């Protein structure tokens, strides 16, 4: 029989601020005491449904610069919400220190408990400990940096006109996915210092501005440089197109470079989130499940409230099968939570199969310890590649379908059997490899002495070419930013055979 140590924190669904505080304290004691989570200080903000819609539409950030695409997001979200096609998320959490979690006033007391457990402890622990976040994000600086970005872009709109800024942002957004450093070559950003430095730079430029410089004669023509050396000097090849533009774009004004930089740094900031969606949601879901269960065991929440929680939880981790009308790919909550539960099971009550597959930790106990190590050191791809067990593959009845261009039919290349486990695991891991899911595009050359054309290459994997229409539009944007012709060749990755070429000329801008 369970040992009840406390009276329930609440009955019914109403809440007030004092109750939120008591709930928080109870959740905290389990999260820090039992689960030994390490978190940034928490800040919990209560908002209305409408404000939640607002927050949704600017990638969840409390302050963000203005752009029409966020308005488009808002319009779409609002309609789905109003028609009841989609409920609002109960929570929104920001990777910042202090870690800000938004909770909605419409939530019941049970949901508030769930949200605090999920966001303020689950996500918070993940943000604080996962290597990708530690390496790439600056939780202390992000809010200040966004504030700077917002006011900088607003001041550019004043100075150079909203249209010019909008055009620039359109172009930059289109290249956002090509605006991240995928490999930790440079040190993590100190965003606070970054903002301060830019203000200084701007002030200095204003101070030394003198129109006469424009009239100075240029020196004698620089001698011809060899192509190799030139590429080396420009740090080519370069996969970060935004970075290259910012540093090298011949026709960009300083303010334009700064805006490109803002978009790039924000893209970089969100890059770890894209790489760890399954793990991040899995971690938060696993934590809330543990915490809510322990709260119930110890009598902090009533049976009714626990049932309400279980219903929400079941919805969150529901995974429709491929032939269901609700199927829309894998549910990251379900996938992450499932594998993490499995890890704990393997470390505490393994089968022979588990011992064979996971000799490192099977049966060693301390499931939470294993999980904490996993949360800290993996991203989705490596997480699935390492920890998706045969048991989970059977449980989900996973199968692998291949679609070869040369064949008229799809074929089932592996199912959940002995022969299929490893192949399925590898293939699923690849689906979560952000680097692999995105086309491999690099700037390979630029002819600065000649026609200044920017030359890009797409190394085509498995014959998957770029989307014709989108590419045309993005390259047009790129050509406008670069100021000269842009050429993109699609080469077969295996033999470098040329498959397709896109060329765009810059359009004169009014």
């Amino acid at each position: 029989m369970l040992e009840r140590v406390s009276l329930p924190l609440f009955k019914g669904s109403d809440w007030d601020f004092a109750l939120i505080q008591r709930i928080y304290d109870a959740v905290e004691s389990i999260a820090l005491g039992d689960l030994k989570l390490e978190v940034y200080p928490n800040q919990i903000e209560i908002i209305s449904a409408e404000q939640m819609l607002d927050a949704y539409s600017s990638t969840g950030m409390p302050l963000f610069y203005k752009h029409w695409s966020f308005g488009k997001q808002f319009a779409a979200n609002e309609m789905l919400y109003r028609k009841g096609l989609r409920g609002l998320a109960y929570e929104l959490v920001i990777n910042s220190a202090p870690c800000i979690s938004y909770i909605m006033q419409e939530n019941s007391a049970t949901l508030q408990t769930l949200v605090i457990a999920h966001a303020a402890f689950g996500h918070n622990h993940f943000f604080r400990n996962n290597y990708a976040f530690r390496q790439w994000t600056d939780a202390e600086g992000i809010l200040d940096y966004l504030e700077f970005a917002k006011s900088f872009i607003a001041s550019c709109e004043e100075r150079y006109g909203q249209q010019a800024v909008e055009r620039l942002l359109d172009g930059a957004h289109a290249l956002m996915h090509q605006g991240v450093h995928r490999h930790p070559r440079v040190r993590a950003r100190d965003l606070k210092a970054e903002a301060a430095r830019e203000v200084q730079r701007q002030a200095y430029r204003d101070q030394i501005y003198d129109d006469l410089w424009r009239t100075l004669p240029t020196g004698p023509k620089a001698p011809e440089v060899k192509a190799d050396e030139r590429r080396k000097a420009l740090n080519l090849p370069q996969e970060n197109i935004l970075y290259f533009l910012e540093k090298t774009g011949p026709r960009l004004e300083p303010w334009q470079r700064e805006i490109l930089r803002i978009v790039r740094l924000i893209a970089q900031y969100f890059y770890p989130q894209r790489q760890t969606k399954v793990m991040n949601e899995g971690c938060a879901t696993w934590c809330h499940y543990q915490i809510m269960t322990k709260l119930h065991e110890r009598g902090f929440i009533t049976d009714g409230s626990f049932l309400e929680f279980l219903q929400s939880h079941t919805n969150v981790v529901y995974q429709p099968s491929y032939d269901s009308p609700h199927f829309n790919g894998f549910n990251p909550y379900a996938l992450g939570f499932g594998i993490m539960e499995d890890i704990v099971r393997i470390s505490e009550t393994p089968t022979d199969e588990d011992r064979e597959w996971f000799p490192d930790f099977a049966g060693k106990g301390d499931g939470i310890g294993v999980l904490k190590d996993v949360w800290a050191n993996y991203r989705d791809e490596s997480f699935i590649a390492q920890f998706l067990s045969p048991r989970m593959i059977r449980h989900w009845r996973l199968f692998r379908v291949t679609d070869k261009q040369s064949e008229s039919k799809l074929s089932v290349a592996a199912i959940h059997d002995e022969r299929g486990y490893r192949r399925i695991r590898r293939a699923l891991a690849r689906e979560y490899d952000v680097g692999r899911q995105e086309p491999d595009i690099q700037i390979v050359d630029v002819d600065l002495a000649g026609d200044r054309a920017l030359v890009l290459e797409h190394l085509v994997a498995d014959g998957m070419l770029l989307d014709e229409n989108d590419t045309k539009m993005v390259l047009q944007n790129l050509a406008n930013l670069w100021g000269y012709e842009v050429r993109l060749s699609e080469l077969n990755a295996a033999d470098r055979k040329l498959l397709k070429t896109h060329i765009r000329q810059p359009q004169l801008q009014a």
Partner: protein
Amino acid sequence: MYIIDRRLNPAGKSLVNRQRFLRRAKAAVQQAVRDSLKDRSIKDLDREGQISIPRGGISEPTLRRASHGGDRERIFPGNRDYLEGDRIARPSGGSGSGSQAGSGDGEDQFNFVLSREEFLELFLDDLELPDLAKRKLTGEDSSTLRRAGYTTVGSPANLSVQRTMQKAMSRRLALRRPSSGELARIEEEIAQLEARDLLGNSDTKRLEELRKERERLLRRRALISYIDPVDLRYRRFETVPKPISQAVMFCLMDVSGSMTEHMKDLAKRFFALLHLFLTRCYQHVDVVFIHHTDRAAEVDEQTFFHSTVSGGTLVSSALEELLAVVAERYRPEDWNIYVAQASDGDNMRHDNLKTVSLLKDEILPITQYFAYIEVGPEEQPMTRTESDLWAAYEGLTAAHRHFAMRKVNHRREIYPVLRELFRKRGALDPLDA
């Protein structure tokens, strides 16, 4: 841990972004708004509504792979039947990799809801009242009073007691007018001393001092008045010209037997759009419904739109009724008068002359705008011959800029006609361009 209540923070942070989005997609949204009007009932014309616009203009392209082609593989959950090596026919969607729903790939429409305000804004965006109406709008026939601070002169009725007392008090404080409390204290002391004096143990010196002091205070109080003319403050009013912001719209409809349901629907739609437009331009809009056969009557909305009467047609009867209502309730000096007349053009031949002269001599001089809509059957509009009424009216258009006539056979023509009538002068019409 901190808990912060942000509920009172302004919501609608996305409003600016939303407006920018609408501005960006304006042409497409406007087109969609106009299209959606065709299918709306009259009651719903100005409701908020869902809009679909093509994705093209508002797409956000990225460098991404095409959704099909090449060699792909995917993992799916929920296998029940398949064994390794099974072959599956390609789904008909073309995409070899299963459902793309929700990713936005397959959808060529973008759906969202416009609020009522946004809807009207976009719908009536570049319409305005014709020039001649504006002159009337800013006319100075009428004016209104507006508070404009305080003044030292004025009529007693405008005396601001509060201001005056404030001024008086500050003056009294500044000049140190003895307060009545001060005086009362001294009086009391004197009274005490006088009482003791009667008993014999007198302090004459003190009494003398106090009496002098009382004298001084009384003199001072008399000198510094409680309220002085310089304290007086009056409320000041300014007259500002008041734009005439009321309009009346007359809906004249022929309901004789020859008007089919379709024709009435066309007429109703025109009235409704005109009404929508007027309500946005004026604070106050009256609508007068007059229907007529060979007799005319002012009726309520319900009767206007739904009654079935039959009989001959005398257009002049409706115009006479209009003039009667104007004479009774709507002084042309105070009201912007609009008339929308809808008819199938049938009229007794002998009546046309009278109609035209009524229009020319009495109605057109007092109206801001007179729009005549000749409704016709939806099918075979080409074979129609000119109606008598049309022919009779046609002579008026040259001399009267604010008289317009159009033929309408189909719902979709209503809106363009309205636009034509009220288009901003000088603005290029995107639909024509």
